[in-house]
C-alpha cells in the first residue's frame, strides 16, 4: 500500500542493525554445523549397526536417529525459519496443531489401528 511509512535509519542505527544481522547469521552457521554433526552421527551409527561393528541394537539406534531428526527439524524451524522471532505466533500455533495431528494420526495407525 501506498501508505507505508518510510523510516530512514541514521548511520548509527544502520550499523547497529547490520551488526545484529551479522550476529544472527553467525548463530545460523553454528546451527548449521550442529545439523551437519547430527546427520553425521545418525549415518555413522546406522552404518555401524549395518556392519555390526559396535553391537548397537535397533532398539537403541532407531530412537536415537528419530530424536536427532526431531532436533534438526526444531533447529530448522526455529533458526532457519525464524520461528524464534516474534510475530510468529500464528505460524507456531498452526505448525503445532499440524505436528500434533500428524503425530496422533501416525501413532494411531502404528499402534492400534494398523494390521
Amino acid at each position, binding site marked *: *500500500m*501506498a501508505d*507505508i511509512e*518510510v*523510516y*530512514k*535509519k*541514521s*548511520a548509527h542505527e*544502520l550499523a547497529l*542493525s*547490520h551488526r545484529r*544481522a551479522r550476529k544472527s*547469521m553467525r548463530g*545460523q*552457521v553454528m546451527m*548449521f554445523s550442529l*545439523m*551437519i554433526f547430527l*546427520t553425521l552421527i*545418525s*549415518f555413522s551409527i*546406522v*552404518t555401524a*549397526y*549395518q556392519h555390526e561393528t559396535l553391537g548397537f541394537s*535397533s532398539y537403541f*539406534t*532407531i530412537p536415537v*536417529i*528419530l530424536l*536427532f*531428526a526431531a532436533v*534438526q*527439524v526444531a533447529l*530448522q*524451524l526455529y533458526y*532457519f*525459519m525464524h520461528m524464534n522471532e516474534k*510475530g*510468529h505466533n*500464528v*505460524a507456531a500455533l*498452526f*505448525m503445532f*496443531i*499440524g*505436528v500434533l*495431528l*500428524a*503425530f496422533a*494420526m*501416525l501413532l494411531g*495407525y*502404528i499402534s492400534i489401528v*494398523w494390521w
Partner: protein
Amino acid sequence: MDLNKKFTPETWPDHPEQATLEAKNKFVGFWIFLAGEIILFATLFGGYLALKNKGPSGLEFSTQSLYELPLVFVMTMLLLTSSLTSVYAMYHLKNYNFKKMQLWLAITAFLGLGFLALEVYEFTHYVQLGFTFSNSAFSSAFYTLVGTHGFHVAVGLVWITLLIFRNAKRGLNLYNATKYYTFSLYWHFIDVIWVFIFTVVYLMGVIG
C-alpha cells in the same frame, strides 16, 4: 504500492517480508499452507510405513537390499547446505543487498538441482534393477513418498528460477521481498521433510 519506489539500505524496513498488509497476508498464509503440508506428508509416511516391504509372494526387493547410504548421504549434504545458502540469501535480503541475494539464491538452486539429479539417478538405478513403480505395494509407496518430496524440490527450483529472472532488472522492492521470503520458507520446509525421509525411509530401512 508504488513499484518505482526505490529503497536504500537506510530506508529498507527491518522486516521487509511483513511490511505491507499484502505481505503479511502472504507470510501468514504461507505458514498455514506449510502446516497443511505437514499432514500431507504425514499421510504419505503413514502409507509408506504400512506398506514397507509388502509385496506379492516372493518379493525380491527389501529396504535392506535396496537402499544405499552413501548416495543418500551426499544428497542429504547437498540439501542441508542449500538450506544454509538460502539463509544467506535472506541475510542479504534484510540488508538490501540485491546482487548478493540473487547470487546466494542461484547457489541454492544449483545445490537443489544437484540433489534432484542424484534422486533421478537413484530412481533410474532402481528401475533398472527391476524395482519399478508397479513392482509391489512397497515400490508404489516408496516412489510416491520420496517422489512427492522430489516434486516439491522441482517446484521450488522452477519457482526460484522464475523469481531470479523476473526480478533481475527490477531489483528489490516490497512487492517481491515477500516472494523471496516465502520461497526460503518453502525451501527450508523441504529440508525438514527430507530429514524425516532420510531418517525414516533410508536409515530405518537399512536397519530393517
